[in-house]
């Protein structure tokens, strides 16, 4: 009877060792289908933002639309948090997407707008409004997430939120 345990023990050992490896798993078909089930409404909303971004000719207009896209992802973050068992992996993913959109889309566009717009012009006022709104939106979202006791024990989420927080000084630079 006990001799039958040898293969079992070897299997347990091997499984534990394989499971302990940090190589990321490739999502299976079922995972990918589940992801599109969860995200399809968000994907459609973001596409609408993409079309409006595509239709807009000015830096300011695109920065404003990009902010709205961030608000849409932020809304999805809030909906995820409101669920009784918040999916922390999804929250980290959404936070990382917000960081990417901010750093690769919004910040370079705000930079281009700042270089183009003269101080005191109507454009400068609009630019300041976009900067303030974006900064306030992100700050409100981050504060809410940081205060939620269910969320602050997750290391991956904490790192994702820190990355998003690190964009704030560039969104609304401190006036000299």
């Amino acid at each position: 009877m006990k001799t039958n345990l040898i293969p079992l023990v070897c299997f347990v050992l091997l499984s534990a060792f394989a499971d302990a490896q940090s190589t990321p798993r490739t999502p299976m078909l079922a995972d990918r289908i589940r992801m599109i089930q969860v995200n399809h409404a968000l994907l459609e909303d973001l596409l609408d933002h993409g079309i409006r971004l595509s239709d807009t000719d000015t830096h300011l207009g695109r920065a404003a639309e990009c902010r709205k896209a961030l608000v849409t992802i932020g809304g999805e973050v809030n909906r995820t948090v409101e669920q009784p068992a918040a999916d922390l992996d999804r929250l980290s993913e959404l936070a990382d997407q917000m960081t990417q959109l901010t750093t690769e889309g919004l910040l370079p566009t705000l930079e281009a707008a700042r270089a183009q717009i003269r101080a005191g012009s109507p454009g400068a006022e609009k630019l300041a409004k976009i900067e303030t709104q974006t900064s306030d939106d992100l700050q409100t979202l981050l504060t809410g997430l940081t205060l939620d006791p269910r969320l602050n024990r997750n290391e991956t989420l904490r790192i994702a939120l820190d990355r998003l927080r690190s964009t704030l000084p560039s969104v609304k630079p401190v006036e000299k």
Partner: protein
Amino acid sequence: MTTTCRSIELQLTGLPDPAVPTEDLRAHLGECDPCRKYLAGLRRLDAIVSSLPVPAADPLVKDAFLAGLPALPPIIERRLIPVRSGSDSYAALTRRVASARSWIGAGTAAALILGAGLYFGTSDTRPQAQAAAFRHELLAKEVATLATLTKATTPKEKIAVWTVFLNDLHAEAKLLARGGEVSEMQALSRMYKKAATDGLAKQACLLPHHWTPAQRREALAAAEAELAAAETQATIQADLAPGQAKVIFQAIAGSAKDARARLQQAIRGEAF
């Protein structure tokens, strides 16, 4: 054609699915017309090969193989191990078995402790690995599309972005057809239509009015080739796909065809 392009062609040919080039290949494809055309050709070839019928196995060969199996020797053989002289009493045998059992018990305990140690000792790396595995690729690509569109200033730049995104949507539809729900497939086909019409085709109409048809053709060549490949692929996929997936691929083929017609109008200057 440069040496880089030859290397890129080799890498494109080696892709498991030509509809999904890797990030570094996409970067090159974004700025190289010949490589985009090469990829479009690969996709057409892939669609045609996928549609080829698989010949049925010869039943006689299968029967002969199965009939021959019982005549083969067993994979695992039972062997009797003779007891050595001098220790052939029952008591000696029992002592040896008891000793072996105690070693097995100790080995099992050690293995379980080691296994548990490995599992819990390395558990801090698990959240990152799992989170990385469950990121939604299409969502990431869409956010990257939005980021690029936020920076893009000319219709030509925006056309290139939409062309890549349409390809991403088509690839996702292909995947979803293998087991997704109807509502999600419909959402993807709606997105494809919107991106093709309100994204790509609309920007084609916004190319500078003073451009000649030749300049417009050059600017739209890659997008047109992608749409033609998508139309061909989706038509073949519609023929092969079951039930609702068939309708979705028909819709994608139709959207690609309409958008391509609008691109051709834009090239002729009729859309202005």
